[in-house]
């Protein structure tokens, strides 16, 4: 990365009230406030959202792919953790 390049920010959009923010992509920006502007202009041009979060990419603590087996595989055979044994009532849209 060139030293004069703007830092990278991850962009999260809440598409409508009541839903949670979802990762949409990333933008470069000179600072936090401009990152919000850039996220708005890059990712919400077609009414994609009602709320925006941006966070410096280097502030995100990510899991290590080398540890995937320890991290995620133990959950694979725990079928009882999935709430699939009852019916979802009609009319519940976002579960």
């Amino acid at each position: 990365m060139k030293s004069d390049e703007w830092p990278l920010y991850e962009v999260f959009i809440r598409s409508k009230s009541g839903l949670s923010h979802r990762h949409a992509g990333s933008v470069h920006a000179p600072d936090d406030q401009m990152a919000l502007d850039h996220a708005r202009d890059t990712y919400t041009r077609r009414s994609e959202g009602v709320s925006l979060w941006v966070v410096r990419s280097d502030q995100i603590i990510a899991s290590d792919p080398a540890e995937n087996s320890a991290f995620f595989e133990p959950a694979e055979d725990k079928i009882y953790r999935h709430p699939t044994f009852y019916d979802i009532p009609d009319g519940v849209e976002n579960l």
Partner: protein
Amino acid sequence: MSNDKAVLAYTLRLADNTLILAQRMVELVAAEPELEEELANANFALDYIGQARMLYSYAGELEGKGRSEDDFAFMRDEHEFANLLLVEQPNGHFGDALIRQFLFDAFYVHQLEALARCSDARFREFAARAVKEVRYHLRHCSQWLVRLGDGTQFSHDRVQTSLDDAWRYTGEMFASDETDRAVQDCINGPDLEEIRPLWRRDVEEVISRATLSVPSDDWMASGGKQGRHSEYLGYLLAEMQYLQRSFPGASW
């Protein structure tokens, strides 16, 4: 001047401001320094073109001679355009283009807020929609201005020069003439004397946050609203109108 004629002339002034500024911004498409700013600039230009279209189609109805949006945009000559001199000034560098838009938007926001309260329903409808777009443009420009002014010594000096150079085009915004007064009287339109201190307050607030100095009010250029333009508008129109002039009625 009859009321209808004044409202028509005023509609064209509003429309020409947005179209000419948009055309200047379109010249920057694919030439912005960063991808994100490129998108922002193109979005803003499209906002202005959308506003110009609404206004030109209203002008066509007011005039009642069957002229379309395209006729107003592409088939009028330089002296028939009534945009402010400020918006036709060349792009220069990033700071020049930014200052031009900042000074204009700071005025336009108040002009739109006043139009949103006038007695012409079409203007009210238009202004209520446009003001949201322009508030965001102004926010974005103000943010950049603070960063350039309060950035490095180099960026500070460059943007101060941009501000000093553009300042002479700000007096025209508040120089009210027959049309401004007629619109104020007959549809309770914007009062430029009321807007001037609001503009001054907003502009000074951002300039001071940007650690820049407010230029002194020396000689002010004027004439754009009356169709007397700087040397730059002719070239802009030549490029913008070329296709429709060469192939009248061309569409896709």
